[in-house]
């Protein structure tokens, strides 16, 4: 690992005893951090620790209650997004923020469209954008509409946009959270390149090995306070986990009881445009099967079809022997099929409704409750909130006020708490912290142990290795290979995802 | 003039129906006459909405006016209002139109709209002589007033005048202009147009002139501008039906009837066909604002 750290170096950003509260509860308390040029500074902490809040303060989206922020030696009071940009701070926030109705090219050039006179030079727009994408090794079509991209692709576009803009500081809030191994590697390579060119990088991730590999300096937050800060070389995985969580976290593949031979979920000859072409898969009860593929969106599409959100062109889906009606969500829910969608903001949660309402949203509808009793709702949601460790500052705030990882936990609680017979999991641990990830993994283990058929799509090879019994590789809408997980290694798995069979 | 008309100064409520020129002039007349008579006046406007009219009347009742003068949005919708006012002991005096049963009202000043239409038709009949001619109608907004005018006009036409077009101008000058433009297009040989008020007639005139057609316009009101148009031949004729006379008469009669004096209970606003020849006969339409 190369490190460009010198103690004499001047800080680009100096955060001094910053405190920030929401409605009286502190999200950050007395946080002080220094960021140096040519250094990757990782921010770590559990869900709700305050990482994104700090990012929002640095990017000018929020103002701290007290404390000072110095950028390039100048104290910045009341920083706003434009000023932040002007002083050289670029941010890729945790929530994907693109103008979904515009093209990729325009999104990349947003606010800086090249013009001659007042006229936009469209050629220049496309070329510059394409160049920015190419520099990152991304081959997304610059003319594609942003809203049509997968979340992973949107992330890449956002990173490309911020990198193209340049600046002294680049903030990346969980850029690799839902990226596949290869895309994540591209981001990491980029981070190192930028670091070497003297940019100060603030990097947030819940993947400890990634952070240890990438970071020069690490600051750990817990409940809004700094619990550890130092050079990456001064700590290790175990130490970091302790500083974040306050205890050790172990996550091991359990020995699950023998799978039954009953088929829990069966897909026969499923066709959908160019995404799926006569696709077959069987998941037995108690089995966890991972679908892998390079495209990333074949899985999302498969899940869309299985959940009933979209009608398929042909084929048959059955759950526990019962055939599902095409495109009928209520039918698929009644059969016991549950779909934990990957894009929690678009397909998972309802903003404006509280945590409790979101947690009980599906269950209450399955129960066909007619009357909504608020006290009962709280009582019934409580065990689920506890089991999935949803942390919030307020008692029961609207769900959009939760940190990203906690929103993910709400989504899991909402679906896995409904006595499923078959479950589709799409990036189930997207953005959750180490301890929550371990807990979620054991919850999924337990589900399988109870005889639930689980179909998994995950961008993380570790997660697949940790959870799945069997891996099915999809390419061009067809299933091209299948492995028992205990027969392949992690590297082989990654190679499989990226291209062809072994 | 602060001439004290006794110690018992009356308070009148005036509920106007809309904000067209006619209504503006009516209100001016009512206000001026009330001042002359030393009566206190409270006004409200229903903006062509029967619901608002009822609200206004209710508000007036709760303010305990001595009598209500109502230029109604719609005469049949008024029955309830009259009952209401009556049970509160407040008599209602109507302008322009009356209910079929007049026993419950204090009095009225009415305009015989059917006759207005008929007067215009009479002009067309005389002017056309025996020739076969085409006439078009630009009506007002759907409702009794417009229907009476149009009905009076069509019914009184002789057989040699055929009505080839009848479209609503909604008592709106811009709309009437559009309609006239389209009408002259569909019926290039149009010779006469009956337009339900002068405001619309000016719009129609604009359209006919732009199309280069000489259509003789007959209309009603008798505003200064309308009379000027009759004078220089832009309009062929108009039926004077003075808002000022109606307003003044309404206040005067209402107060008289209220004080048990003698006045014509159902008075008629005099109407008169005005052409180039008898411009001087036209009463004043509007007072200065």
């Amino acid at each position: 690992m190369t490190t460009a750290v010198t103690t004499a170096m001047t800080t680009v950003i100096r955060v001094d005893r910053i405190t920030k509260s929401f409605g009286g509860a502190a999200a950050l308390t007395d946080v002080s951090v220094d960021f140096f040029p040519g250094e990757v500074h990782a921010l770590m902490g559990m869900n709700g620790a305050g990482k994104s809040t700090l990012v929002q303060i640095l990017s000018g989206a929020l103002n701290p209650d007290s404390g000072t922020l110095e950028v390039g030696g100048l104290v910045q009071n009341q920083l706003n997004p434009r000023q932040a940009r002007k002083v050289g701070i670029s941010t890729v926030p945790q929530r994907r923020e693109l103008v979904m109705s515009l093209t990729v090219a325009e999104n990349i050039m947003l606010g800086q469209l090249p013009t001659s006179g007042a006229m936009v030079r469209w050629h220049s727009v496309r070329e510059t954008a394409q160049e920015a994408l190419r520099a990152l090794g991304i081959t997304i079509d610059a003319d594609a509409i942003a809203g049509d991209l997968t979340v992973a692709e949107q992330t890449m576009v956002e990173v490309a946009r911020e990198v193209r803009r340049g600046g002294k500081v680049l903030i990346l809030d969980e850029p690799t959270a839902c990226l596949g191994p290869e895309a994540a590697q591209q981001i990491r390579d980029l981070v190192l390149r930028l670091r070497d060119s003297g940019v100060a990088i603030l990097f947030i991730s819940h993947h400890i090995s990634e952070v240890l590999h990438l970071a020069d300096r690490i600051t750990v937050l817990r409940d809004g306070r700094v619990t550890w800060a130092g050079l990456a070389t001064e700590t290790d995985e175990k130490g970091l986990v302790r500083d974040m969580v306050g205890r050790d976290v172990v996550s091991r593949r359990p020995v699950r009881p023998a799978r039954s031979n009953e088929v829990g979920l069966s897909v026969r000859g499923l066709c959908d445009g160019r995404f799926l072409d006569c696709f077959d898969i069987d998941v037995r009860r108690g089995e966890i099967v991972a679908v892998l593929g390079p495209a990333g969106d074949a899985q999302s599409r498969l899940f869309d079809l299985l959940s009933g959100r979209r009608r398929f062109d042909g084929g048959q889906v059955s759950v526990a022997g019962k055939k599902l009606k095409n495109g009928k969500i209520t039918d698929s829910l009644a059969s016991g099929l549950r779909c934990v969608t990957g894009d929690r903001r678009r397909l998972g949660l309802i903003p404006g409704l509280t945590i409790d309402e979101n947690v009980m949203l599906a269950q209450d509808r399955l129960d066909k409750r007619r009357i909504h009793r608020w006290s009962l709702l709280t009582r019934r949601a409580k065990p689920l909130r506890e089991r999935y460790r949803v942390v919030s500052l307020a008692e029961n705030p609207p769900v959009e006020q939760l940190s990203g990882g906690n929103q993910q936990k709400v989504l899991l609680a909402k679906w896995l708490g409904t006595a499923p017979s078959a479950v589709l999991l799409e990036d189930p641990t997207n953005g959750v912290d180490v301890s929550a990830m371990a807990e979620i993994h054991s919850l999924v283990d337990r589900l399988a142990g109870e005889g639930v058929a689980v179909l998994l799509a995950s961008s993380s090879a570790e997660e697949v290795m940790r959870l799945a019994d069997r891996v099915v590789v999809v390419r061009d809408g067809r299933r091209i290979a299948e492995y028992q997980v205990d027969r392949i290694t992690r590297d082989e798995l990654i190679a499989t995802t990226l291209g062809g069979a072994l | 003039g602060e001439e004290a008309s006794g110690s018992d100064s009356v308070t009148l409520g005036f509920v106007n129906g809309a904000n067209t020129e006619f209504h503006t002039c009516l209100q001016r007349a009512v206000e001026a006459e009330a001042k002359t008579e030393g009566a206190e006046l409270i006004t409200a406007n229903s903006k062509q909405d029967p619901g608002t009219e009822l609200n206004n009347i209710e508000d007036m009742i709760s303010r305990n006016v001595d009598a209500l003068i109502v230029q109604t949005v719609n005469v049949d919708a008024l029955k309830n209002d009259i009952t209401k006012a009556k049970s509160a002991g407040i008599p209602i005096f109507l302008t322009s139109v009356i209910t079929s049963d007049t026993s419950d009202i204090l009095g009225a000043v009415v305009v015989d709209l059917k006759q207005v239409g008929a007067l215009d038709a009479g002009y067309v009949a005389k002017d056309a002589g025996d020739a076969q001619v085409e006439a078009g109608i630009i009506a007002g907004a759907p409702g009794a007033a417009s229907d009476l005018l149009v009905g009076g006009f069509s019914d009184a036409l002789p057989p040699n005048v055929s009505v080839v077009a009848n479209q609503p101008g909604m008592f709106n000058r811009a709309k009437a202009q559009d309609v006239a433009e389209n009408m002259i297009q569909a019926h290039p040989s149009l010779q006469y147009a009956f337009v339900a008020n002068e405001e619309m007639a000016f719009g129609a005139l604009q359209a006919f002139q732009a199309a280069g057609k000489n259509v003789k316009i007959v209309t009603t009101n008798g505003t200064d501008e309308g009379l000027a148009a009759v004078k220089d031949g832009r309009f062929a004729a108009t039926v004077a039906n003075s808002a000022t006379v109606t307003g003044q008469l309404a206040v005067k009669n209402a107060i008289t009837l209220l004080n048990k004096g003698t006045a014509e209970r159902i008075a008629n606003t005099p109407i008169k066909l005005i052409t180039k020849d008898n411009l001087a006969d036209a009463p004043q339409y509007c007072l200065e604002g």
Partner: protein
Amino acid sequence: MSAVATLTRPVRVGKIPHAGLLLVLVGIIVFASVRTDSFLNTNNLLNVARQVSVVAVIAAGLTLLMVAGGMDFSMGGNVAVTTAVAAQMLSHGYATWLTLVTAIGLSIAVGLVNGAVVTFTNVAPFVATLATATLLDGVALLVINGMSISIDEHLSGLGSGTTFGLPNLVFVAAAVLAVVAFVMRYTSFGRDAFAIGGNEDVARLSGITVSRDKLVLYGLAGALSGLAGIMLLSRLAASSPGTGGLQLQLTAVAAVVIGGTSLAGGKGTIGGTILGVLLLGVVANVLNLLQISSYYQQISVGAVLLIAAIANLLQSSRKR
């Protein structure tokens, strides 16, 4: 396993909902009471209550619909058609019960047509219902043939009658508001509406029968328009051109949005809507009482609306 710290927030400060709007309303009431004796007069207050009751019923339906991300711009038109049909039937001697059933049935049908168009063709609700609004205004004129149709004493019990000294219309409106408020807060159907307005895709995936719910919501908006139409007819004792229609619609929309219901869906309360309806009713009444001339009345209503909208927002925009 150590517990993840749940930070408990200090007890919520007893924030009054819609404080800004309330303030404007109280301000106007105080101003009016000082300036004219007639305002606080019982009779006048009853008048105001009766006058706003029709708008309140429409606004209640609209609130629920808008919370679910819908919009019905044709409720005024629906009112016009309902009053027209009911007036014709009553004046032709049909029984009152038959008239009511037919009129309300018709208004529900209109609502369902709106709902079907919005649900199954994806036309934006505003666009679809603006079209039906135009259409319905024409239908209403056609039904009454552009004339006034009087119904004499037929519905006077509803329109002019009182119970315990309060107008019957006010009871009807209050009942509707209470039921809608209850539905919105305590029934799954109501909560589903919030979910649909918040994120329709998620609602559908969570097992909410979105299409059916939307149809029902539009049907309900139609039904309440019908009820409002009957109430209006009973008050006016006649249906004539200009009854109901766009003006009524805009008043109802203004009341609802001033009350804080979001045009984008997912947010709204009956409490806010009541305040909005009252504000508009009180302002119209006060302007009449204060003898503000017609032109200035419109100007004042516009200004008050603007001030109320701003006041309602300033209070709710939490400081970050």
